[in-house]
């Protein structure tokens, strides 16, 4: 029984991996950007866990900057993905422009809150 579970898991991983390879490059790029942002946030949380949250506003600012930009990147991925029927009529350039604008506003607030 255990063997079949591990085999199922391995099969699952293999199928996911093969499917993922097929995704277009620009989507993979966005996925990597999201991973980068999330990892940066995790490192900041680990630092805070270690030394305490004294300038709490700075910690929040840093973490929320990473999380925020990750969320915006996910939105961008949704809008740019050609397989997504909902956003068929939306030009990917327009989505990218929205992404840039939202990031600019986010980072202004982040820098103000950073202190």
């Amino acid at each position, binding site marked *: 029984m255990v063997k079949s579970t591990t085999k199922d898991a391995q099969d699952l991983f293999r199928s996911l991996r093969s499917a993922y390879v097929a995704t277009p490059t620009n989507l993979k790029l966005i996925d990597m*950007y999201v991973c980068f942002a999330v*990892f940066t946030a995790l*490192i900041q949380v680990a630092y805070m866990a270690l*030394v305490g949250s004294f300038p709490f506003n700075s910690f929040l600012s840093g973490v929320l900057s990473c999380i925020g930009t990750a969320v915006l990147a996910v939105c961008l991925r949704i809008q740019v993905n050609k397989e997504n029927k909902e956003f068929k009529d939306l030009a990917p350039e*327009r989505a990218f422009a929205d992404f840039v604008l939202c990031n600019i506003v986010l980072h202004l607030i982040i820098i103000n809150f950073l202190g």
Partner: protein
Amino acid sequence: MMAGSGLRFLVLILVVAICGAASVFQPISDSHRSAAVDVFVPVDGSYKSLEEAYEALKTLELLGIDKKSDLSSATCENVVKVLGSSSSTLKDAFYALSVNGILKCKTGEAVLKDIVSQLQAGVKGAKSLLDFYYSVRGLVLVKEQFSGTDLSLGDAEAIFRSIKTLSQTDGRWRYSSNNAESSTFAAGLAFETLAGVISLAPSEIDQSLIQTLKTGIQKLFDSIQKYDDGTFYFDEKSVDATQGPISTTASVIRGLTSFAASESSELNLPGDKIVGLAKFLLGVGIPGDAKDFFNQIDALACLEDNRFSVPLILSLPSTVISLTKKEPLKVKVSTVLGSKAPALSVKLAQALSSRSKDSSVINSQELKFDADSATYFLDSFPKNFDVGKYTFVFEIMLDDSANEKVYITEAQTKVPIAATGVISIENAEIAVLDSDIGSVESQKKLDLTKDGAVSLLANHLQKLRLSFQLTTPLGHVFKPHQAFFKLKHESQVEHIFLVKTSAKKSELVLDFLGLVEKLYYLSGKYEIQLTIGDSSMENSLLSNIGHIELDLPERPEKAPRPPVQSTEPYSRYGPKAEISHIFRIPEKLPAKQLSLVFLGLIVLPFIGFLIGLMRLGVNIKSFPSSAGSAIPALLFHGGIAAVLLLYVLFWWKLDLFTTLKGVSLLGVFLLFVGHRTLSQLAAASNKLKSA
């Protein structure tokens, strides 16, 4: 002719209304002279500059102090050096000639010719007021000191006109045609310079020019400033001027004096303002600064001897009249530098008492003159002249003899006078009364002129009454400034009470029932002391009357304790306890190395991202190549980079509002550029799709 000159030299009483506070101004006296020696004689025998040397020597000369012999050799050397050098500035040459006028150093003929040619060249090439001032006044000094030298000023009227261009409509002058700032100090310099031009001119200067100058002087007097005590002064308009009121006033007075001396027609200046200027300069007292001292004495010397009007000052050596000593009240009238006044008479017009301001005690009393001491005195006072404070109003009337100069005085000089006398103390008694009935338990008569040994007993249900009568020499009731009654306990605790004076007598009633808490419930022996004092009272007293045994109830628990009396009476002026402030404990920060390690760790995901990008084979092949599309694309990326840079600056230095301004500007720019780029990209991809 006689009538004309009589009219000219006839001295009129210039009726001038000066209302304001009463005050006394003293002319220059020996205290000024001794202070001048301290201020102006340098310790090491030499002056720092010729300007300082001139100011010091002129002041000492005007005050009549002869200290020249010690300093003359070093200063004369300096003077000869400056006059002989061809590279000395106009300012140095001017001050060298000024010092030479006082010390009379020996200079040669050749030096004289060089200096004259240098000054004449200075006049020709003068660009600012100061250049004109130094060169023209230098030539005037050469003319005064070396007779027979040929000094031609060339076209005097042209020089007059070119100096006149610097004048302004409000009476002030500018220093040069480039500098728009006007200055009252510069006005004084301009008057002196123009006076020099008039005196050096070979022929008469056009009268219309001189008339415009006189109009300008009248305008300048309109801008004069005043204080409440009737003093007038000139000051600069701007706050950060280099010249203060003393130097500005002195400069204007010097200018007016030399202008009035240089030309033959009359210069009419408002008399009250001249007296006010004299009072201002005298009111300075003894200045501590050498420049202020020089300006004060120089200006007063100009006022002492000028052609418009010479002010006379009324002063009193003592403003206190003692009714017991019966000494006369002395009044002196002199010029500002303390010289003798011409023949005149002084009248005491009114003596207004501080108590009844409308009626005058003395009316129109003429003062007698003592020729030996040159003072006027009043030796008889009316019978109703009581002790107290008065304001004496003096009037000066100049005799109608032919005086060479025009003298001027204040119409009325108000002087505060204090009359003192012996106040008699009568019916002084102290009594202990029963509170309810008011009947006298024990009563003692007091002689307040000497210490007594009165002994009284009282308990908290009784009252203490002190009463006395103060009368002036004329029999009026006297209300003293200070009437204090002090009770001092054996433990050194003191209490002071005020004795009130009513229309008939002075009385103090202490009700011990109400005072029990104030006295801290301390029973025992209290020393009694009475103080009576006043500025009009010649026999103010402090008398120890005796002592009183007070029997007060026990102190309850909550009553305040008497303050601890320190043995040292001055210990309250010693250092106080140190205050320790409690500050917020700063938060514990992590170790620097740990923070740096995590800084490195943060960079890792970014490096991972870049490696991932490379592995993916990401490229910028679809970056537009043609110039028309490359530029907006570059600008777009540049704009985003600029926004990020602005954020970094925001974090480092700027504030939110500046950043918002910058972001909005860049945002608008980015909007246009981004729209351009992205629409081009979209068009390109559409073309690709359709193709």
